[in-house]
């Protein structure tokens, strides 16, 4: 195609002077608007490099500029040729000079010819672009030749304003500037800005306007400028391959500036605030509610009570089987409250302080009822929490595998262990649960929230509110930690939605206080282990385990009873034991409802198995490390007795590495010396599994009628209109750096840099990038999320190749991906023929005419759903592959318990992690650190302690004492990588860490108190508890060993 441009302008210097400038390529070329360098080939020919491009697609183009005609002092003509956007162009420009007064009139003509299929296709877009560039050349020329130019410009404002491209180029330049991309030379920018100003003021008939008058219009553009250090971070990292690079995170740009967007930071016009009145009793009938005083307080907008919402809201779906389906769980207590802190009345007011004031004016009369605050009283069923269920025994099932009785009959030793207890705690993310709900005028609701499993949340909320899923928009942005706890926010989301509905659609914000979070924001469930018996052969190999477990999930099951099966993902822990009979039970009690918590349900089973190992080792007088080496699984993939497949691992190597890191031999010597002095110094090992990527089919083991199975995660990748690569995820990261790791994966797939990829923040149902399992939980993003991203990349690459093959008239097999002079591109291998993403996107989005039918299905907007190859488990036998990957942790702790104060002090700690192939070592190490310190806090400091009336005694941070930097040891961190054969990238999901320090600390403390013959049977070991444990000295009855004479 061909484009012609022409025009004239007058300048003050005489023709000879103007000719001198125009006829010398060395003087002329630098006037090109985006000139970057020049090399003279001969007297008339220059090789000129100019930067070209729009938005992120930038590069340099080389133009050969030849002076073809030179007639002094009236005529000069140039021919320029070069390559651009996968084609070639030639440009002829000529200048005729005529005297005009003492100056010169310059008449110019330009002709641009584009050769190549793509340039023809993109012609419409190219014309505007070329025109823009040519206008800029002419402006530069005039500026160079005429000092009066500025004055003239002012005089011709209006005329210029009519130039259609003027405002657009000005706008683009402003945007580029605010994005901080390579600035064009100042001269050109100034001219373009002037044209932009002129365009904005076109039609203005008032007084003179200055550019400052326009500034207010530009202010919002400036404030949209993104804070983005990521390009610099990527530049510093400088790498060919990005997966496995220890890249600092993209997310940090906003977070270190305090510019994250957490729910409480979100503000919107008309927003009002909800506060809750909560039950002070653990179990009480609601006799009377009087909201009149609250409602009469100025600034209060409405109240909601349980009986009011029960009329317009369905109870939440229950997961449990049989009578458990009759549990009626509403966002507010209806007839009675069944735990301390249960919401009873909601109050909405103009500001949060007024809402709190009004909540205090609500009068509720309660009639206290008897309570069941522990598993024993719950099982007695004297006080039944849920009349519809008729019992507190929420779930029961027997998990039996192998030949348990035979193994016990043949055992060389049988170790019988008295009751063991795993305590109640939570990860207490620093940001509490929160939501802004806005009822929509045509029905439906928008949520800006921090729920970490929104795919389930919307499936819970929609039936409760009588909406279709599509009527719910659920969006997250930055989330201040979740650790599983924030899976449980949906009752509050539903409540805020109903408040917004009552207020005709005003946005209702609810921010949980810390006290509320401790009372009702989601507890990790406690578990008790009864009648535990362990069969061992003569060498200390554990052949069978039988036991009775009771989980206490608090007042409302919500995500439960899934925890009643999830533990069986790690049934034998890391050990070879083949015979198990676990009688598993779950009860409801008058305590805060449970929610998944880092290491969810597996950490209780792992602690149980690790306790068994150490207690048996202690009883049989086998060192803890030796006991483990005898029992470790060593062959992979390994199928457990219940059909789970451990993908890979090397526990002995991890033990060796952890020992080396902590200086095992050195500490053994120090321990002997300390013991000789009567000090209580112990060394403990904990081996842990972090099973990742659930097979939701295991839900059928708790309730065969549930319709779930497998797992899914979604990623969407597209080329935007400007060729930018945009990725949307289905996950809800709360610190795990998904924006960064995703960019690393995509960069490698497309052969570009991570900072060239825009990964959108957070989850949004309108991204259409989610499935029914989307969210961040169960250690899975590296597998599910990145597999979805990887799959989407493959499809996108296929489409890009189809387009490029057509445009470049090449075979797809000859194409390669990479970064060219004009940004991300495809090129024909071994040639300089290439086409960049901008041009490829244009073929689908902007200039779409003239394409062959075989390209008709190309969208450059790819949605990929990753589904791991799971089968539905055998529900009767409770067998099947329940999880895809098994990351492992091996921790060693050296602990001294002070003989006076009973304070357990950590003297050394090593943690070795194996999560298969590592995507980002920095992020992995960070997750391991976090999980470790969380676990140490849980083992020594953090516990939800209830009195016998069901009052939570640790309902503030001051009482719960989350671990601080003062109680934190320095960790010696190491890793091994055993790639998973089941994920495309060899990675295993990680991050939960399986509660590794809980067993490690129990082991180390037991070793420390060896001389006292103490057996640690509780996962929580505060100084007070340890004092009781030592003084109780009931080990004679706690553990019994029966050995068969051989």
């Amino acid at each position, binding site marked *: 195609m061909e484009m012609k441009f022409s025009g004239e302008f007058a300048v003050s210097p005489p023709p000879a002077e103007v000719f001198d400038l125009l006829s010398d390529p060395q003087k002329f070329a630098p006037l090109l608007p985006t000139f970057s360098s020049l090399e003279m080939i001969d007297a008339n020919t220059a090789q000129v490099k100019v930067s070209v491009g729009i938005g992120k697609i930038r590069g340099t183009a080389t133009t050969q500029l030849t002076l073809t005609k030179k007639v002094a002092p009236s005529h000069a003509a140039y021919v320029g040729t070069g390559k651009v956007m996968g084609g070639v162009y030639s440009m002829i420009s000529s200048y005729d000079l005529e005297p005009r007064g003492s100056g010169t009139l310059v008449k110019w003509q330009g002709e641009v010819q584009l050769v190549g299929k793509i340039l023809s296709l993109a012609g419409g877009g190219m014309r505007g672009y070329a025109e823009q560039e040519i206008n800029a050349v002419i402006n530069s020329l005039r500026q160079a030749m005429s000092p009066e130019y500025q004055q003239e410009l002012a005089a011709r404002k209006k005329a210029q304003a009519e130039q259609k491209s003027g405002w657009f180029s000005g706008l683009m330049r402003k945007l580029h500037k605010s994005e901080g991309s390579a600035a064009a030379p100042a001269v050109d920018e100034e001219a373009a800005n002037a044209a932009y100003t002129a365009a904005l003021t076109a039609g203005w008939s008032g007084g003179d306007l200055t550019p400052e008058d326009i500034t207010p219009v530009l202010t919002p553009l400036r404030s949209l400028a993104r804070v983005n250090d990521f390009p610099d971070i990527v530049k510093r990292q400088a790498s060919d391959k990005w997966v496995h690079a220890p890249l600092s995170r993209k997310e940090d740009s906003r977070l270190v500036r305090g510019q994250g967007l957490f729910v409480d930071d979100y503000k919107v016009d008309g927003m009002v605030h909800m506060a809750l009145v909560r039950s002070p009793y653990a179990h009480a009938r609601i006799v009377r509610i009087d909201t009149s005083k609250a409602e009469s307080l100025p600034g209060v907008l409405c109240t909601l009570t349980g009986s009011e919402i029960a009329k317009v809201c369905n109870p939440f779906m229950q997961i449990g089987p049989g009578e458990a389906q009759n549990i009626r769980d509403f966002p507010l207590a209806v007839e009675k409250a069944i735990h301390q802190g249960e919401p009873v009345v909601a109050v909405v007011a103009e500001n949060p302080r007024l809402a709190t004031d009004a909540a205090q004016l609500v009068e509720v009369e309660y009639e206290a009822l008897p309570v069941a605050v522990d598993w024993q009283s719950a099982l007695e069923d004297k006080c039944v929490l849920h009349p519809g269920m008729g019992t507190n025994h929420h779930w029961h099932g027997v998990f039996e595998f192998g030949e348990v009785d035979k193994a016990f009959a043949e055992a060389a030793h049988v170790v019988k262990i008295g009751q063991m207890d795993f305590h109640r705690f939570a990860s207490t993310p620093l940001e509490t649960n929160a939501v802004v709900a806005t009822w929509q005028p045509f029905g439906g609701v928008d949520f800006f929230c921090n729920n970490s499993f929104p795919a389930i949340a919307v499936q819970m909320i929609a039936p409760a509110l009588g909406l279709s899923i599509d009527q719910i928009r659920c969006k997250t942005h930055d989330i201040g930690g979740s650790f599983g706890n924030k899976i449980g926010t949906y009752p509050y989301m539903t409540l805020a939605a109903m408040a917004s509905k009552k207020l005709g659609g005003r946005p209702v914000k609810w921010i949980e206080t810390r006290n509320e979070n401790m009372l009702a924001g989601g507890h990790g469930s406690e578990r008790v282990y009864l009648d535990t018996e362990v069969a061992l052969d003569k060498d200390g190999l554990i052949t069978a385990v039988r036991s009775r477990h009771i989980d206490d999930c608090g007042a409302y099951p919500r995500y439960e009873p899934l925890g009643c099966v999830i533990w069986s993902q790690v049934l034998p822990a890391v050990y070879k034991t083949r015979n198990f009979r676990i009688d598993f039970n779950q009860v409801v009690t008058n305590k805060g409802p449970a929610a998944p918590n880092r290491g969810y349900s597996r950490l209780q089973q792992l602690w149980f198995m690790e306790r068994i190992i150490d207690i048996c080792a202690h009883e049989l007088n086998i060192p803890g490390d030796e006991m483990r080496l005898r029992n470790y699984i060593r062959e992979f993939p390994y199928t457990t007795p219940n059909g789970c497949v451990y993908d890979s691992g090397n526990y002995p190597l991890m033990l060796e590495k952890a020992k080396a890191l902590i200086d095992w031999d050195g500490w053994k010597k120090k321990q002997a010396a300390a013991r000789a002095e009567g000090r209580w110094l112990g060394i403990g090992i904990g081996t842990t599994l972090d099973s990742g990527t659930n097979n939701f089919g295991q839900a059928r083991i708790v309730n065969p009628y549930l319709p779930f199975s497998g797992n899914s995660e979604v990623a969407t990748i597209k080329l935007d209109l400007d060729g930018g690569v945009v990725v949307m995820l289905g996950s809800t990261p709360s610190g795990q750096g998904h924006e960064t790791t995703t960019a690393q994966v995509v960069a490698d797939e497309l052969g570009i840099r991570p900072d060239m990829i825009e990964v959108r923040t957070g989850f949004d149902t309108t991204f259409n990038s989610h499935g029914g399992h989307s969210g961040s939980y169960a250690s899975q993003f590296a597998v599910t999320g990145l597999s979805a991203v990887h799959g989407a990349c493959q499809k996108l690459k296929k489409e890009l190749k189809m387009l490029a093959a057509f445009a470049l008239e090449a075979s797809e097999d000859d194409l390669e991906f990479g970064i060219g002079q004009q940004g991300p591109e495809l090129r024909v291998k071994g040639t300089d023929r290439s086409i960049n993403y901008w041009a490829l996107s244009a073929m689908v989005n902007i200039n779409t005419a003239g394409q062959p039918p075989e390209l008709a299905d190309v969208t450059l907007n790819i949605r990929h759903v990753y589904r791991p190859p799971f089968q539905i488990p055998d529900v009767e036998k409770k067998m099947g592959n329940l999880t895809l990957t098994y990351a492992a942790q091996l921790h060693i702790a050296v602990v001294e318990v002070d003989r006076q104060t009973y304070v357990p002090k950590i003297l050394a700690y090593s943690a070795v992690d194996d999560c298969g192939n590592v995507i980002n070592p920095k992020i992995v190490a960070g997750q391991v*650190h976090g999980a470790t310190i969380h676990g140490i806090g849980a083992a020594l400091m953090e516990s939800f302690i209830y009195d016998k009336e069901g009052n939570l005694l640790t309902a503030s941070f001051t009482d719960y004492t989350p671990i601080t930097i003062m109680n934190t040891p320095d960790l010696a961190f190491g890793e091994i990588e055993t790639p998973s054969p089941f994920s495309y990238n060899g990675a295993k999901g990680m991050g939960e860490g399986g509660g590794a320090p809980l067993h490690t600390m129990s082991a180390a403390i037991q070793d420390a108190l060896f001389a006292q013959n103490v057996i640690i049977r509780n996962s929580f070991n505060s100084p007070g508890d340890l004092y009781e444990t030592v003084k109780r000295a009931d080990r004679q009855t706690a553990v019994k060993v029966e050995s068969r004479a051989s």
Partner: protein
Amino acid sequence: MPNAAQLVTIEVTVNGEKYRRQVEPRMLLVEFIREELDLTGTHIGCDTSYCGACTVQLNGSPVKSCTLLAVQADGGEILTVEGLEKDGQLHPLQKSFSEHHGLQCGYCTPGMLMSAHALLEQNPQADRKAIRKALAGNVCRCTGYQNILKAVEAVVNETKGGQ
């Protein structure tokens, strides 16, 4: 709604800018910073001055803004996380937290940065023990504190190197 007579006029300088506002006497400093000044980098984590997510500097000292009333800051000079970046240049602590992965969810980060900032102003050569002590009132649930220590130490070492 509070009537005008109950409101108290206060004047504070925040990140170098002067603000004059009428506030309820019971308004917390953190509420004032977040709601009135729209500086939402300062967070609320525990309401009881245990977690330090709300830490700002008032007249040079780190304070927990959830446990001060806005009126107590009248006439004071406040520095929040938004004031750490100068002329488009991140503060070395901000850079170092990112470089050493001293943050994950980022919720505690502003408070951590402000406590660390106050420490280094008073003691640019702070050792590990001093850093721990200065950050004892800031809870992080994600990082296990390991990389936060590293990040602050790196800034101290940089300062030492520059001397």
